[in-house]
């Protein structure tokens, strides 16, 4: 750690640092916060020119219910007591290294919070009318957009498809990447390295070209493959499994590269000492490397996950509507013949897509930093 005392000595520097930190946080979070606000409003408010109308949602307030000052105070109170509860109780998982620790903080607590909040706001609404101004809703809020996305448009199907594709991509690319990265780090073969560099350059080829190359093959795969596979020949177009391989192929060079750098930072002596103890290469890998590789694997895995989860070009062209993942599904909301309602629904869908990413980062944040620190990205 280089939190040098020196850095904190100068008040000006301290001021600048804190100022920049605040500025950066605003810059980083503002667009996302803004679309989140929009997604809870009716279209006429969401696309209003006046920012106050977007935030308070006057028209949303008129036709739907909203939050009153009392509700907001209630939310703050519930949040506060939840935190106090957390600090006092030791029964919750408290080991920061454990997944369960982050899972409780990332998933369980927000759910408890929302549940408690809505339950209590039921009562405040009942008494709200009697206490005048405090109980009067001032913040327009509607879940209509989310409802029509998830229920009306059956967005959960796309969510499941995203889940299938990302799970597949992450597991395949890590499986291949760990073995190939380990081999490259230990064997030092020039041929393999040249291949890796070529593959990296290939990464810069426009993806659209690749996809167009795959498209005719995917559509006609049944005809093309039937001489080899007979009746079992599949139509690859629209199959999530086929997409998994395309996405893995595109990103594999990067995955191998990261894991290679990571393994290079694990001293060779470790596996050599294991070999001296009479282990085979595979056993050495299994007993010595696997226990220490997790931070690097998690970090690399997160990058694969982001690629698969966020991809648009490949998924939009090679999947049909039934198997579409979330990103191409919402982009189709934006196309030529849409209405403002469609667009706000798309915004709600966009926020729904981002939400799992939030939780993911919340859960794995520590591992990402420690994984990178341990050298997964040494040039």
């Amino acid at each position, binding site marked *: 750690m280089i939190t040098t005392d020196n850095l904190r000595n100068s008040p000006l520097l301290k001021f600048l640092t804190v100022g920049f930190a605040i500025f950066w946080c605003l810059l980083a979070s503002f667009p996302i916060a803004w679309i989140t606000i929009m997604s809870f409003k009716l279209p006429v408010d969401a696309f209003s020119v006046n920012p106050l109308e977007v935030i308070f949602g006057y028209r949303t307030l008129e036709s739907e219910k909203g939050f009153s000052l009392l509700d907001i105070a209630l939310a703050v109170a519930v949040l506060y007591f939840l935190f106090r509860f957390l600090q006092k109780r030791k029964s919750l998982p408290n080991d920061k290294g454990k997944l369960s620790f982050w899972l409780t903080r990332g998933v369980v607590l927000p759910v408890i919070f929302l549940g408690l909040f809505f339950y209590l706001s039921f009562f405040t609404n009942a008494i709200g009318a009697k206490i005048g101004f405090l109980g009067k809703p001032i913040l327009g809020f509607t879940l209509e957009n989310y409802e029509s996305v998830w229920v009306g448009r059956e967005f959960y199907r796309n969510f499941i498809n995203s889940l299938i594709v990302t799970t597949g991509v992450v597991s395949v690319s890590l499986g291949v990447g760990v073995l190939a990265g380990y081999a490259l780090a230990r064997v030092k073969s020039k041929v393999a390295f040249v291949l890796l560099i070529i593959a990296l350059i290939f990464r810069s080829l426009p993806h659209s070209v690749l996809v167009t190359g795959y498209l005719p093959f995917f559509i006609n795969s049944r005809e093309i493959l039937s001489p080899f596979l007979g009746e079992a020949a599949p*139509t690859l177009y629209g199959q999530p499994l086929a997409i998994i391989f395309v996405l893995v192929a595109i990103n594999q060079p990067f995955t191998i590269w990261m894991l290679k750098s990571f393994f290079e930072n694990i001293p060779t002596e470790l596996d050599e000492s294991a070999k001296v103890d009479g282990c085979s290469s595979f056993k050495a890998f299994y007993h010595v490397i696997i226990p220490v590789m997790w931070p690097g694997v998690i970090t690399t895995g997160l990058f694969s996950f982001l690629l698969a989860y966020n991809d648009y070009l490949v998924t939009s062209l090679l999947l049909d509507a039934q198997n579409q993942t979330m990103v191409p599904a919402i982009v189709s909301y934006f196309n030529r013949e849409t209405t*403002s309602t469609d667009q706000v629904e798309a915004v709600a869908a966009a926020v729904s897509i981002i939400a799992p990413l939030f939780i993911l980062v919340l859960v794995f944040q520590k591992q990402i930093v420690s994984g990178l620190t341990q050298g997964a990205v040494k040039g």
Partner: protein
Amino acid sequence: MLNKFYLVLFSFAMLFGFLSSQCKYTSQVDLKSLSASFPVWKVVTDAMAKCGNLQAELDQEYRSKVVEALSANPSLYQLVGVSASSITPLIDQNLIRPLDDLVAKYGKDLSPNQLIKVDGKVMAIAFIVNAQKFMYRKDIFERLNIKEPKSYSDVLKAAEKIKKANLIDYPLGGTYKTGWNLAQEFVNIYLGFGGKFFNGKGDASVNNSRGTKTLRLMKNLTKYMDPEYLTSDSTYVQKQFQQDKIAMANLWATRASSMNDAKESRVVGKVGFVATPSVVRRGKPATTIWWDGFVIAKNTTDSEAEAAFRLGLEGIASEVVEENSDVAIWLVKGYKPGQLADAVVAAAELNAPNYPSSLKMSVMHTVLGKNISNYLTGKKSAKATLADIEKDYRLAARESGI
């Protein structure tokens, strides 16, 4: 509480009774459809899905894969939604089947107007037409004492008045987004001037006085538009209209009903609709008529094709049309035009031309979309832009074998 329960029960019962009465034909065959994704298609495919095992894929970019998808054997989709221009490659490459026998067998409810014929063979069943119509703010026009514009010079005069009065951000809106939209505007106005895209030898000919006039008019109109017009598509213009930012625009007829949707619009009841103005005095309205319909893929079994065709007819049954008469201008029997259709009907009565769809025109449309912005941004002169359009057309045409 109990009351609510009965209400739900009752509405369910209604719903099921309604559903079962709606289908004249039900099918157990597994079918897939591909079409564009505007509201009409949602209505139609939903209606079809109620009567059979249909997996409908609505994709605004369906053109980018429809040719490949139908070339596969068996075809990936049995039923495909097409428009006046996207049917061209399917016919040319022999990917869809003639429907004469099916029409003879099941199509007694179809009106002759709906049958798209190529060389006497029915290739597609159309069910809606779409064109642009002129929408304007009645309140502003009344206040400034402006009459409904009959021609584009009226529009320019009105725009100038509105600009001077400074009542609204921009007098005029236009779907001038680079690409397909911008090209469509050019086509509308150029045809309005009486222009022809190809000469007798079949070569491109837009570099003429009519072409120049078209570009000039477009540029004049843009002076009254939001300066970001080159990124405005229909949705954006519609949104601006709804948010009280523009006073008039020439928009697709299917956009009209949303002007009066209180959830989206601040100008409910203030918008008037008339036929698209002409560019020359007492000329034809400067718009083209488009149709949408469905076709059946060639590479499918006969029984699948038959099921798909019959299911397609269920999607455009009169009951569906009656319920959704505001969504589009239907060609189906039993459709009673509402207020929405009047302006378009008026345009048609004044003989607005059909979109001149052909293989060559599709190349031309794409090339136009890429080049016109060069003139509007001032990068190139009108002459140079038109010359480039012809040059690019020749290159693209040569590549696609024309």
